[in-house]
């Protein structure tokens, strides 16, 4: 049984990690595309329109890869997590179906119109199609996060005698106190990823002395969007999320922060340290006293319950992975603010375009927002363990009892091979698009 849970979780973790590479870019990039198109409508400067169309190509490649890698996710609910689907389908089916019916169709239909219909529609309608693509991609995030928010903090449900969850209050799904902070945090994080992608393409063009006019535009846009979104990810959205976890999942909060023993008054914030699960303490710890209490409750000496206050089987089952995921996310987020603030300073001083070390740094930082986004999701998902629906349905009760671990491992290996192929195809297509660059309009 343990074996089956492990492989089911491993397969889901692998497929969702690979899948989330794509939507995190499309959600943020759609906002930047709308910005470029709006600038073009306002100023009639052709390079903004070229930029919007160039990034829509990158959007389309990512969107397509997101669709392909999203299909196994849909199947996995039925194959690996049949009991979970059977018990909670009455609730999560609502939001997942709305995601497919409203957001996906909105996004894909208007994406095609944006790419093919500029001449036919004229510029105002073309802008509108870009805006509807943005709306579709953010609505998609909203419905997926509504599903996840219900799993993290179940509301508006009733449990029948046969153990099935049914929806008692539809609007509760969307007024869930978990949803709005999670959505805003997630969307800002996706804008961070897109900003770094846009800025790094700009840095690449400037360093190669190729399409430098576009390079400067992309770099400037990426840096401005990057700094604003990096700050918003931390505060207020990240802060709001952390307070939600402290309120609704206090055991998870203790595990994320590495608080093994409840301190008498005022919890410290740990900057560096390694969880030692044998002696139940953090090794080689560097911490600042009372800061965590202040950040969480705005009181220096407020007590925060440690893991010693909870039953072991109520705590997340992989505390080191949760602790590291959370700290990697926070650490990288802090680095992003620093780098983007520095870049904005030199942009203001008109020196950024000639600062090769900073341009190289921005270019090579591009994988890290992806890592931060993914470790952020690991924090949410590992933190919810040992539950699928927090406090109500354990992960071990949600798997498909008839699917063997050998079967899951076989398909996992198949996914790894196919995703490697898709990953290569993705890199070739994106590389080709970036290499070709935006196509200036000729009149």
């Amino acid at each position, binding site marked *: 049984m343990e074996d089956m849970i492990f492989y089911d979780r491993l397969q889901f973790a692998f497929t969702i990690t690979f899948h989330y590479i794509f939507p995190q870019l499309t959600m943020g990039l759609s906002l930047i595309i709308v910005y470029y198109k709006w600038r073009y409508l306002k100023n009639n400067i052709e390079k903004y329109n070229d930029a919007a169309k160039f990034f829509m190509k990158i959007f389309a*490649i990512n969107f*397509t890869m997101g*669709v392909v890698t999203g299909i196994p996710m849909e199947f996995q609910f039925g194959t690996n997590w049949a009991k979970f689907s059977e018990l909670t389908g009455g609730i999560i089916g609502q939001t997942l179906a709305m995601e497919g019916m409203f957001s996906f169709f909105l996004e894909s239909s208007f994406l095609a119109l944006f790419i093919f219909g500029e001449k036919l529609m004229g510029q105002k309608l073309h802008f509108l199609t870009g805006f509807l693509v943005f709306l579709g991609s953010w609505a998609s995030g909203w419905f997926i996060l509504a599903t996840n928010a219900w799993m993290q903090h179940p509301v508006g449900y009733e449990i029948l005698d046969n153990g099935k969850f049914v929806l008692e209050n539809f609007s509760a799904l969307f007024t869930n106190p978990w949803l709005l902070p999670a959505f805003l945090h997630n969307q800002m994080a996706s804008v961070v990823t897109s900003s770094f992608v846009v800025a790094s393409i700009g840095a690449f063009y400037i360093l190669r002395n190729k399409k430098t006019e576009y390079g400067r535009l992309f770099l400037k846009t990426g840096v401005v969007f990057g700094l604003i979104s990096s700050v918003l990810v931390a505060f207020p959205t990240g802060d709001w999320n952390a307070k939600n976890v402290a309120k609704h999942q206090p055991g998870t909060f203790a595990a994320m922060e590495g608080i093994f023993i409840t301190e008498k008054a005022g919890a410290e914030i740990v900057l560096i340290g390694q969880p030692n699960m044998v002696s139940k303490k953090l090794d080689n710890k560097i911490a600042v006293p009372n800061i965590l209490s202040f950040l969480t409750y705005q009181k220096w000496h407020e007590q925060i319950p440690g893991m010693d206050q909870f039953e072991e089987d109520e705590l997340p089952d992989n505390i080191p992975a949760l602790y590291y995921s959370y700290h990697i996310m926070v650490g990288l987020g802090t680095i992003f603010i620093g780098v983007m603030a520095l870049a904005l300073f030199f942009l203001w001083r008109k020196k950024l375009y000639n600062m090769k070390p900073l341009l190289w740094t921005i270019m090579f930082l591009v994988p890290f927002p992806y890592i931060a986004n993914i470790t952020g999701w690991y924090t949410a998902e590992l933190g919810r363990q040992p539950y699928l629906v927090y406090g109500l349905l354990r992960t071990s009760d949600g798997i498909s009892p008839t*699917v063997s671990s050998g079967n899951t491992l076989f398909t996992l290996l198949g996914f790894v091979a196919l995703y490697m192929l898709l990953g290569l*195809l993705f890199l070739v297509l994106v590389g080709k698009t970036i290499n070709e660059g935006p196509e200036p309009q000729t009149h």
Partner: protein
Amino acid sequence: MTGTLISLISILLGIIAANSTGFIFKKYSFGIIGNTLIGVFGSILFIKSFGRLGFDPWSIMNDGKFDAFLLIVNLLVSALGGILGLIFVKMIYNKMNK
């Protein structure tokens, strides 16, 4: 479980079919990027729409008994989705950009 893998393989075949068609018949090509995107959506559309006639991934792996004939039908329909998708999108594209 293996059904999920089959659905991914058929999408890959749709990509290959659309790209091959674009390579052979240049007038339908959107370049490797466009052909690939159309291949994905064409094959998904065809498999989702027509697979219910009895050759969807679950029917292929019915009760764990692998049906090679149905797999071939599935892959052929997927490839057809990629090819017809390319032709259809090109027709729309030409009409929209007259």
